[in-house]
């Protein structure tokens, strides 16, 4: 059930009308049932996985709350083990089994592992991370365990953000589940704005950009030259941003209409002044997850170890920072998919972030707009790695991009389409960047606002691809 489909529109209208008529108790039950229907509509068999993760972390949370200090951590281990096992089996097993078979094959050993060959359960990377964060936060004493199973199940499965985030923390979201929520015109209006703009980003910009990207990134493409790869890479940078940020905005908007506040997931990342800044603005709920549940604990682990104990603060700080950064970014890359290009995407970003801190004193002296321009282009090289079909394909595309330029009719047609799609986004983004908040169009005079809303609606009707292309992050 895609957000940009008629089925979802009917589904949401029914849920929303029933929600308005219910009290808090029934609202939560309604949302829980609706969330399970929403998830089951993709593939009902995978409801079992969602339920396994929910039951595990519900009981782990409760037992952490009740257990004596020494035993608490065992329940954290159980939670991490169960959730990562689900993720490992359904997302990574086939990939690593295949890679291992190829590796031992080089040495003349033939093995025939059993492959599970299943479609990746949608949203599994999101809800497993969400439930792990809950258990760890209960263990850290930042959150009280949720006593009511159904409320907890709603926290895990809340349909607007279930399949592609934002990855909500219990500390932020559970209090909203447990208390009365205000549904008012102001929230509804802001929510509607988010849904409207999110739909425009997805159906008009992202999906039309995809038509520029896909033919060029197809390994069997015959229409390739450096200029086309260059435009397609820029187009993909915009596509993935509009696709994912669009999804997040729709999720935020739907939740807002029902009185929930979801966390911000994107803060105009292409205005970042360096790569470290980029990761504070791109997929914020995931990057902050890795920071809080992997990067920092791992750094503290190294810091508390005896490694280079006698050396200076600066030396140990830099060493541990770089090692932990590399490991974290590697896994963050791999989180996106079972493929070496994703892992390398993470490694590439770790090199950029590390490089930034080494060259900080020089970088920070560069003119602000040039910093933004350079950061965007460095991020685009990362997207080339990310979008390609593998490491060899990345290399071939990159080589093509710097060696074989040709300006033909197709290149000009691509450039025009790219610029038209990009300009709509750019104006909106720059207004929000200057204002440093959402709802750019609402700051304009009324007449201009309504003209723009009309124009956007017309462009959605004419060029929007409704219910055709899935959201990119669904595959993660």
């Amino acid at each position, binding site marked *: 059930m895609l957000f940009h489909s008629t089925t979802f529109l009917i589904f949401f209208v029914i849920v929303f009308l029933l929600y308005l008529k219910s009290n808090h108790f029934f609202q939560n039950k309604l949302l829980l049932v609706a969330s399970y229907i929403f998830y089951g509509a993709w593939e009902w068999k995978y409801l079992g996985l969602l339920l396994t993760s929910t039951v595990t972390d519900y009981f782990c949370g409760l037992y952490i709350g009740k257990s004596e200090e020494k035993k608490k951590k065992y329940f954290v281990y159980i939670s991490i083990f169960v959730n990562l096992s689900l993720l490992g089996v359904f997302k990574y097993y086939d990939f690593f089994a295949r890679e291992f078979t190829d590796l031992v094959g080089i040495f003349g050993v033939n093995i025939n592992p059993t492959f599970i060959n299943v479609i990746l359960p949608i949203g599994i990377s999101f809800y497993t991370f969400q439930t792990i964060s809950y258990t760890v936060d209960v263990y*850290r*004493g*930042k959150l009280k365990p949720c006593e009511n199973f159904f409320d907890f199940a709603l926290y895990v499965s809340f349909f607007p953000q279930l399949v592609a985030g934002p990855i909500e923390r219990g500390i932020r979201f559970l209090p909203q589940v447990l208390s009365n929520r205000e549904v008012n015109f102001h929230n509804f209006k802001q929510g509607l704005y988010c849904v409207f703009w999110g739909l425009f980003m997805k159906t008009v910009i992202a999906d039309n950009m995809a038509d520029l990207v896909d033919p060029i990134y197809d390994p069997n493409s015959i229409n390739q030259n450096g200029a086309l790869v260059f435009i397609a890479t820029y187009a993909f940078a915009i596509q993935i941003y509009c696709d994912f940020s669009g999804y997040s905005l729709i999720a935020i908007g739907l939740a807002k209409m029902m009185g929930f506040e979801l966390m911000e997931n994107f803060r105009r990342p292409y205005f970042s002044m360096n790569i*470290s800044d980029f990761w*504070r603005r791109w997929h914020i709920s995931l990057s*902050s997850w890795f*920071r*809080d549940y992997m*990067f*920092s*604990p791992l*750094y*503290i682990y190294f*810091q*508390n170890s005896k490694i280079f104990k006698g050396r200076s*603060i*600066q030396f*140990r*700080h830099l060493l*541990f*920072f770089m090692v*932990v950064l590399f490991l974290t970014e590697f896994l963050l890359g791999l989180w996106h998919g079972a493929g070496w290009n994703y892992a390398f995407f993470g490694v590439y970003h770790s090199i950029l972030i590390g490089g930034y*801190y080494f060259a*900080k*004193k020089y970088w*920070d002296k560069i003119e602000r707009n040039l910093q933004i321009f350079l950061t965007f282009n460095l991020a685009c090289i990362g997207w080339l790695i990310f979008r390609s079909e593998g490491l060899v394909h990345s290399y071939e595309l990159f080589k093509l991009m710097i060696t074989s330029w040709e300006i033909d009719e197709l290149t000009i047609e691509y450039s025009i389409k790219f610029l038209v799609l990009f300009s709509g986004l750019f104006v909106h983004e720059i207004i929000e960047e200057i204002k440093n908040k959402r709802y750019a169009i609402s700051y304009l005079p009324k007449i201009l606002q309504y003209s723009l809303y009309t124009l956007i609606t017309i462009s959605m009707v004419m060029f929007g691809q409704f219910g055709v292309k899935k959201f990119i992050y669904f595959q993660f």
Partner: protein
Amino acid sequence: MDQQNIIHKLKEIIEKQTEKTIKDEFEDIDIDSFTMMLVITFADQELGVKLDMEKLDFDKFKSLNDLAKVIVDSK
């Protein structure tokens, strides 16, 4: 070491590592992971204070004063 001394030391070490000048202890110094990890190492090696994840909340730390306070509270 009291809070003021910690602030003084922190200022010195963060300025050296990030090559930025910090005006006063309440200035929002845009604490990122790099700075936060430096504070963790400083607290451990210089003061013998082990900061753990239970006490760290990245989104709440804004200034030298916030950082010094968490170190003092962890002593």
